[in-house]
């Protein structure tokens, strides 16, 4: 039996069957040096195109910083319990859905608002003055690191929750919403997924990369 032509990788039929029914987990690699990564690894944001990259510890150290092309995405998130934002102010932002996140973009010199939905993430640019009013009422926003951290607002079904959230997790949430969205208003599966997201610890990197990133990149163009 010769199942392989010279140009295909050599694999026995039993190995092929085992791999087929139990696919090996995708191994993430550092996008700068190709080193194999652990499940938990740093993420970087490229300032120029706002691309999210998986990185090894060494590259994350070496290539991130104020004078560099990349910024490292922090890990910690925090719920901002005494965040002040009136519903009028929220309405003034023109966000048509219940969940949105906001971050300062160094490149655009604007605050970018991203709101996830059925068709992926939509994006709008806010005037810095609009942001200034919010900052005035909530000094905590000044501490949010540009490009890599966001204010995540949850107004879904009457909630008024605010978080300081690393941007990779925001994108993960965006992907989650898109993949579970059904009907006109999102449906119960999406609501359960979102509730789980807020209840959970750091989501797997996988969901960030597979689902969320294309949104951000597409929308940027």
């Amino acid at each position: 039996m010769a199942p392989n032509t010279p140009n295909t990788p050599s694999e026995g039929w039993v190995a092929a069957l085992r791999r087929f029914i139990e696919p090996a987990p995708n191994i993430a690699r550092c996008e700068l040096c190709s080193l194999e990564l652990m499940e938990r690894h740093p993420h970087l944001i490229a300032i120029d195109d706002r691309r999210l990259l998986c990185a090894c510890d060494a590259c994350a150290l070496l290539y991130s910083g104020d004078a560099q092309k990349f910024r490292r995405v922090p890990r910690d998130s925090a719920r901002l319990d005494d965040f002040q934002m009136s519903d009028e102010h929220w309405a003034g932002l023109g966000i048509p859905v219940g969940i949105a996140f906001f971050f300062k973009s160094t490149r655009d010199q604007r605050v970018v608002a991203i709101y996830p939905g059925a068709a992926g993430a939509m994006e709008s640019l806010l005037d810095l003055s609009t942001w200034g009013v919010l900052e005035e009422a909530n000094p905590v926003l000044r501490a949010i690191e540009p490009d890599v951290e966001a204010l995540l607002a949850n107004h879904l079904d009457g909630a008024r929750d605010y978080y300081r959230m690393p941007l990779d997790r925001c994108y993960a949430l965006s992907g989650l919403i898109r993949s579970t969205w059904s009907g006109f208003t999102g449906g119960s599966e999406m609501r359960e997924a979102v509730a789980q997201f807020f209840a959970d610890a750091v989501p797997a990197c996988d969901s960030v990369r597979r689902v969320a990133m294309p949104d951000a990149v597409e929308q940027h163009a």
Partner: protein
Amino acid sequence: MSRSDAAAETRIADLIGALEPLADTRLAPAKELVKAVLELHAQGLAALIAVLPAAVLETCLQSKEVALLLLLHGLHPHPTESRVRQALAGLRAELGTQGARVHFSELDDGLLSLRLEVTEQRNFSAPALRSEIEAAVLELAPEIGSIVIEGLPETGEVAFVPLANLRTSTKKNGAEHAEHSV
């Protein structure tokens, strides 16, 4: 040979080849089903083998179908490495006429490393040699996921030039090459 007449292992490999590119999440329950059925069979077979005298099992292994069944479930009593060595031994005569010898180097988690030694300067095709070695090894050890053959160029002819000939040999191809052999 029509598809239905093909050997079971060839059909399994072909069907996986047909399903794999679909990358459809709806395949997941079907995969689970195959896995569950395989596990049930493997457990039953393992229990049978456990009470079978070794000599009887060896006799059963004379049947190709039994050997394939045990290979499928990872229950073959002969370890992978010894089956690989057996396959390489079976290749010795044929490779010898081509002026090559293949050695076992390492077996690590489904990845087999072999080393090709070119004993005589001959003009043979590397892809053909690779297929021949792979087919022989995978027939006896189909659980191997990947084979690396050190000393075998990825493409083209095996261009072996003995050290003594480096100064005189300029031709890359041609049967006349043998005249430079040491």
